[in-house]
């Protein structure tokens, strides 16, 4: 294991990210000290390297990553993991709005609460929220899955087109084109494999209590004739 630290105290996000990209070629683990909630940390990192952000990150933490594994020991601001395609982003604290916005793949894990519009327009991948998820979570979701272990706020799954939202707590209200269905054995099996891997150890009986939010229609706005073939 080759490991190195970057002290972010007096560096700009651009300098930190330039260092990260260079060091990722040589090291297996990079620890960013004194991140002080700076924006864009680890943006566009496309190397299979482990990055530990030793504190809070600002907006767009881990945006557009591919293969990298990032752990944020504090909180993250808006749009953490935006548009990531592969890899892992783990946030030990809470996040602002739009966590996992537009992801194409990979796993985003938030140990505490998330703000509004979690997983907006996500195409694929998985988002796990250990606490509550805010207003319009899953808005215009087009694939993948969101798992919320706490409550999900008003208008959950607003205009959802594809994908699924699993909720263990209360669903305050559903958005347009969203409906709740029972989870099946395959869903339970997937959740039982996934959640303990990120430190969420639920009693077995809890898995039956998940509710699953899915789209009512795959084409709610433009007529029933699909142009996708």
């Amino acid at each position: 294991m080759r490991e190195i630290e970057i002290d972010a105290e007096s560096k700009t996000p651009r300098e930190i990210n330039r260092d990260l990209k260079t060091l990722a070629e040589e090291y297996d683990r990079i620890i960013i000290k004194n991140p002080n909630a700076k924006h864009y940390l680890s943006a566009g990192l496309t190397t299979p390297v482990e990055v530990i952000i030793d504190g809070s990150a600002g907006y767009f933490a881990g945006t557009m990553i591919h293969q990298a594994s990032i752990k944020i020991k504090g909180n993250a601001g808006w749009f953490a993991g935006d548009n990531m395609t592969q890899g892992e982003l783990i946030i030990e604290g809470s996040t602002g709005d739009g966590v996992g916005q537009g992801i194409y793949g990979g796993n985003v894990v938030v140990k505490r609460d998330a703000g509004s519009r979690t997983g907006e327009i996500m195409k694929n991948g998985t988002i796990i929220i250990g606490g509550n998820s805010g207003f319009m979570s899953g808005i215009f979701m087009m694939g993948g899955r969101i798992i919320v272990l706490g409550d999900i706020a008003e208008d959950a799954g607003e205009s959802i087109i594809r994908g699924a939202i699993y909720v263990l707590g209360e669903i305050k209200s559903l958005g347009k084109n969203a409906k709740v269905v029972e989870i099946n054995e395959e869903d339970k099996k997937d959740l039982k494999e996934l959640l303990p891997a990120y430190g969420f150890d639920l009693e077995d009986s809890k898995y039956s209590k998940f509710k699953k939010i899915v789209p009512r229609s795959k084409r709610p706005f433009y007529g029933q004739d699909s142009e996708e073939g």
Partner: protein
Amino acid sequence: MCGIAGVVYKDKKLHPVGSDMTKMLDALQHRGPDSAGFSIYGGLGLENNEYLLNIEIKEKPGLLEAVKELVKVVSPIKSEEIIPSVENYIIYRCKISLKSFSQLKPLIRDIDRIEGVIVLNGSHSFEMIKDVGYVLDIAKRYDTWSKMGTHAIGHTRFSTESIVDRYHAHPFQSYIIPDITVVHNGQITNYWNIRDPLERKGHIFETNNDTECIVHYVADKLSMGYSLEETLEQSVKDMDGPYSYVVGTPNGVGIAKDQLGLRPGVMAENDDVFAIASEEVSLREVMDTTYVEQISPGEVRVYEYNENKKL
């Protein structure tokens, strides 16, 4: 985009809130480079009938003297200070005494009639500092680092519709009741629906800026007996658009966020300090905490020294 912030020391004693707010705003500099401003409450130490006037004057022979003559018609000038600013303007600050608060706004309007002069604000319990440019340049110009107080609000501006000048820098103040100020990030899209009833009640608007509209709305509600929390809750129902805004009063601060949550707002507190801001990076300048709360869509948060006190 704009950055907004507020900080309150819960013991209501004097603390270096000028320094705190300078650091909070510098951390939000990336959210707006056009201008920045502060309302620093609790540190002026004025007598009951005293007020501080904060006046922008173009550097032109005779203008400063004209302002002083006009002020002296209603009040002696008890102390004064001239702060050089940029673009051939000075800031003239003077302490005056009035028989009642109701004299303040008419005096300000009289001074504003002098060409090349505009009163940035007049206050009793807080000091307003606002100017064009970067936070640290303004901080140096006005020595915000040394200002003491009990609580403060502040702003970094990314202008949208209104012009960039000292007067349109935030905070904005209302004179419906004393010492209410607002900093704001966003747009009020039903602006005229909010402004019209206020004008019909006789409240005077100096600009077409939506932040001025918010501060008059807030002051109007407070004058009718609403608490600050009730005022903010009603504003979220009444005002459309993407916004979050912070109010400062002599009694504390509050934040309101639009119902769709389209502008950011976070808060944190401990036994000593209550702080709110656009981003965590700003909170961390005054508090070492890992627990940061997101203000939810349509939510309001208030910290007041006397809870539910009617102003």
